[in-house]
């Protein structure tokens, strides 16, 4: 599988401004969140990027993308029909190709030399199937994420064969259907905000769109799990949801602590703490 395309969704009414926020990246330069996400995508080897935006936002986003702005295509999501619909909006762009899917309000920090997106794309290419990045998450966070259930794929650590996908399940349902052997009690595999998907997902979304109503990506991913080999992969990295309270601050701190300015940031923090203690 050759993954050359990436889709970034940023059309949600509450997240329109998030990709436009600026922060200092690991290399010490100031960028918008969108630029960092685009770099994450490009770092994975993808060549074409489509950003799904709210009507009228394209120009602002193009400016925010900085150096890579010319490599971006924009499509508008004209109706607020859910995340599934946002992905479907890029169907002409994705065509019959597999694609990397990212969200505009998540930033990633890899624990190794390869970026998170690259790790994912390499797994998908090797396994030749759709793969979603996941992270073991405590059940108290279930109201915020899509969750997958399954078992280890071929006994390989960190790689799971998905059998169930549910959007924001209650712990009651999660305990009945989403327990994954090997995880600590009360922990589930929640989406990391990063997927490599196959055209089957877009077809499924198209069918959902025809049926009307809200469109959840999880629903199409569940169908995917029923029809194709579909894996989940735990990546060597961390995810920051900049839409959460202090999300941007946390992301900035994590980036700074991974940057050449680490000592300066640490001493600043210590000073702050010392003053607080007084």
């Amino acid at each position: 599988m050759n993954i050359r395309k990436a889709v970034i969704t940023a059309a949600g009414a509450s997240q329109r401004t998030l990709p436009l926020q600026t922060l200092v990246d690991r290399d010490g330069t100031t960028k918008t969140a969108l630029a960092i996400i685009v770099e994450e995508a490009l770092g994975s080897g993808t060549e074409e990027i489509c950003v799904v935006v709210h009507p009228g936002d394209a120009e602002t986003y193009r400016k925010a993308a900085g150096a890579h702005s010319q490599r971006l295509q924009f499509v508008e999501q004209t109706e607020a029909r859910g995340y599934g619909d946002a992905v479907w909006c890029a169907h002409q762009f994705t065509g019959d190709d597999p694609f990397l899917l990212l969200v505009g309000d998540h930033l990633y920090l890899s624990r190794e030399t390869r970026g998170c997106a690259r790790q994912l794309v390499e797994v998908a290419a090797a396994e030749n199937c759709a793969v979603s990045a996941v992270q073991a998450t405590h059940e108290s966070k279930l109201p915020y994420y899509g969750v997958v259930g399954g078992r280890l794929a071929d006994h390989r650590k960190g790689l799971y064969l998905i059998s169930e996908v549910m959007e924001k399940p209650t712990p009651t349902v999660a305990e009945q259907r989403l327990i994954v052997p090997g995880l600590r009690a009360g922990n589930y595999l929640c989406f990391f905000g990063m997927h490599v998907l196959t055209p089957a997902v877009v077809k499924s979304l198209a069918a959902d769109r025809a049926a009307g109503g809200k469109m959840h990506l999880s629903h199409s991913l569940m169908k995917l799990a029923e029809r194709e080999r579909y894996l989940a992969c735990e990546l060597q990295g961390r995810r920051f949801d900049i839409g959460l309270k202090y999300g941007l601050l946390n992301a900035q701190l994590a980036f700074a602590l991974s940057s050449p300015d680490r000592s300066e940031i640490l001493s600043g923090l210590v000073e702050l703490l010392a003053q607080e203690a007084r």
Partner: protein
Amino acid sequence: MTTRLIEIITATDPLVRNQSLEALCERASATELIAACTELDAFRRRSNNLYERVRALFFLYAIHRFHLPEKLSAGDHNAMIPFRGFEHLLQRRFEEATDEFLAVQAASGASDAISSALAATYQRLAFQTLADQVRRSVRSVRGNQWMFRMGHPADHPLRLRSELRQRAANGSYPVLRESTPVRMDLSHSGWSDIFFLGMDFPEGARVLNVSIDLGVHGRDTKTRPPVEACLRVIDEPVLRLTSVDLGASANITELAEVFDFARDYLGLLKAAVIAAGIVPPGIEGSGQSLADLLAQVVGPGCGLEIVSHVNDIPKGSRLAVSTNLLAALISVCMRATGQATALTGALTEDERRLVLARALLGEWLGGSGGGWQDSGGVWPGMKLICGAAAVEGDPEFGISRGRLMPAHRVLNEPDVLPETRERLQQSLVLVHGGMAQNVGPILEMVTEKYLLRSAAEWAGRQQAIGVLDDILVALREGDVRRVGELTTRNFGEPIQTIIPWATNAFTETVINRVRAEFGRDFWGFWMLGGMSGGGMGFIFEPGQKARAQERLQEIMSQAKRELQHALPFAMEPVVYDFAINERGTWAELLRGEDALLTGGYYALHVPRWLRADPKTLTSARRAELEQFSLACRNRPELEHMMPALFERLLPRPKSDGGRKQTLEELLDQNGFDRVQHEQIREDLKHGRVGMAQNRLPVSASIQDVQDGDVFDAGRPLADSYREAGLAALKCGELAVVTLAAGVGSRWTQGAGVVKALHPFCKFDGAHRTFIETHLAKSRRVSQLAGTTLPHVFTTSYLTHAATEGFLKQQENYRYAGRLLLSPGRSIGLRTIPMVRDLRFLWEEMPQQRLDEQQQKVRDSLRAALINWARTTGEGGDYTDNLPGQCLHPVGHWFEVPNLLRNGVLARLLQERPQLRHLMLHNIDTLGADADPAMFGLHLAQDACLTFEVITRRLEDRGGGLARVNGQVRLVEGLAMPREEDEFQLRFYNSNTCWINIDRLLEVFRLSRTDLDDAKKVSAAVRTVAARMPTYITIKDVKKRWGHGQEDVFPVTQFEKLWVDMTALPEVKTQFAVVPRLRGQQLKDQAQLDGWLRDGSAAHVASLCQWS
């Protein structure tokens, strides 16, 4: 034999596994049985398998309870039950208790006393093991586990569905309303829905369960789901719970209060909130804030209001109303928090199963527990519920053979055609007989008999399984008449074979009268639930149903009137209308103007709102009042609300003004001594008398009697005694006095019925009362002596009229001899207990600790009762109940002097001047009769009093025969200075006492001729009474209210006891140890089954001549 027993337990072959213990024990010697017990004890300690451990424990219990005692030598009086072991037992440290008792057995040899202690310990350990496993299984059900992990509001993973947070234009939040049918068990499953049966014998655990809507015949115009639960968001960070039918409501602001189940009548709602995961069990005791938790789940500053309503269906209906209400509440909470996919309409099968699992959890939390079929109302229509084998992956796999949760199969058209369902509804008359009984002991008996595979009971279980198959065939064929035949057979044969106590005199009277009146049109009887007398079904030819409904009401009411003093009735019998509910539990979302709670909710709350300062009413509440008032004008079902509200706002004077007057009259009529009452109250309030002051001084020396202090009448007595006794009987020197003035508080847990009239057991094919049984013994002795034996029953204000009426109705059971009632002459008025005494009783006295959750509920209840005593006024008169429940008899000491005061003894002596002796005994000492040999012994002893004592078993608590400071006398348990003293005393008082009349009169300084001088007799009685200690006791009294609801209150009363006569130095008293079968007492209905099985009943039968 030992190997054989363990083989039976471990066998996989059903033919070996299902063998009964009795058959093997019958032939074994005492030595073999003791050896078998040693091996079994070692086996159960090393086995990891739940089933093996539990069955071995029940084998051990049964050997020590039923088989070993009868094979031990009768003369062994030396073994003492170690107090330490007893303490361990009370604290549920069963293993330590067993070790203590076994150590004594090893040192002193086997004995009746130690066997009784071991039997009790093994039995309780067995049930504890089962309860622990059910609890573990409930917790380990997937979908329940997370709730035990969650301990902080910030981690709460549930969120209220957004639909419930959207206000309408009028500002109201939507109301989510769940309506749930109740369930009936169409075959009676032979109690196979008990969890352990289902988990151990899944193939035999099957129930035909039907969801039904109900209405009370003649009251309701149509049937409807009897159970309703509503939920809505409120603008306060509290949990507002309301039980409409119990008239209780609370704004809960603290997490700890949610877990305080017995604090008010809202325990079921609290259990539902916890079991549904809104306040998960894991957060108990965390010290976190309820407001924070609600902010997380519902939204900042918001809370939840949850309301339950049962459509006035009486308690004890055997239709699992409480469990289905719990299920409805859980269901509405689960829907609201997204744990069910559909907010409205039906639940999916997976969701129903989850509601069942949560209901099991809720019942466990609330300290109760029904069968696994009880949440059947959640499912639609008719269904077969079956035990399921545990397979790999189940939490039960490798632990028990079956799963905790059964499988439900809804019966569809080929199983039961619509026309058959219709015919069934046209034929079946569903009733509530009005009886309220505790079915807990029955369920324990069933479990025990199943594990012992007692031959007859095991065959009965197989037969019941066959009956269910036949009923399914009859339903498939549409043959309702055949269903009636089968349910009747089921009741008459297997059910009563397994549990003889499933039937009672009331049920059989009603069945016989219905059969006599309807003949072939009466197709059958069908018992519901744990035992009959409450919910029951009668099947008729469809054309007769309307008449049958009218007549059944009359027949039941008539039978109740006849038996109301003999059996515990909680309410007037009721006939229901019912319809099969084909959709199961169902929810609706009420929005805008429709977003109202039930009418009963407003009847409860609106008067409070209107009485409050209008300025304090929130705008939301004002809006709701407007909305409700509009609905009252426009909605026909709320038409009655306005008059009901006025009634609440301006209540008419209660008609219980008359009741209070009756209480005063009763006190006057029964010789209530107000001066003495005030004196006792003063003494109580100032701590001069009380539970702690009942005790002898701690300096008193309490020692066991020496061998010469008692006569051993445990072995057959010499012929000379028998001959002398018989000769005196022939001369008419003896009369029997049965103490029947009390109501037997323990017998019916304070229900206030007359124990003497209770038709407690079947003898010779009919239910017999205690009175009839005692008369049957006197009839036999009369025949033996060739002359009739006079028989006196003492009565009190509580029992006199009922006993007199009953005996008249029964024509004195055709007793040929003189039969007299000796009415009481003294009465007491119960008082509100002192907190000090309640604490002494509950905290200082040894108490049986309950299973963890039940203990928690009991502690909470006791805290509430202490608060009740404090706020109602300690030491005040207890008058908030029926008059009869406010009074108390003043102890059986007075019952003998009453014979002197009320002229009964004078009359007897006038009629029979040769009368010289009385045999006095308790109503529940069924083995006591005017045995010629014992009478001869009393004559030979030449004593004023000869008391019969028995060797002590564990259950014989309450004093005994002792040397007190060197004097041999009986000491009441209340007077024991230290608890452990009682455990040094080998002999327990049977309270059977032979009295030499003339010697007793001497003690009172009276002669036979003085008995006509009422003044002199009264003065004499007062003088002796003054020398008798007065004990303060606390008894339970039931207060009934609503539809069959009962509350039990502790009340203080005082009493003087006959045994203290043995302390008077001038009263020459002798003591004789008699066989247990003669001296044991029946205090509690839970004893009946063991009493029947250990040969006691057969012994009593051998003493009786019924006609």
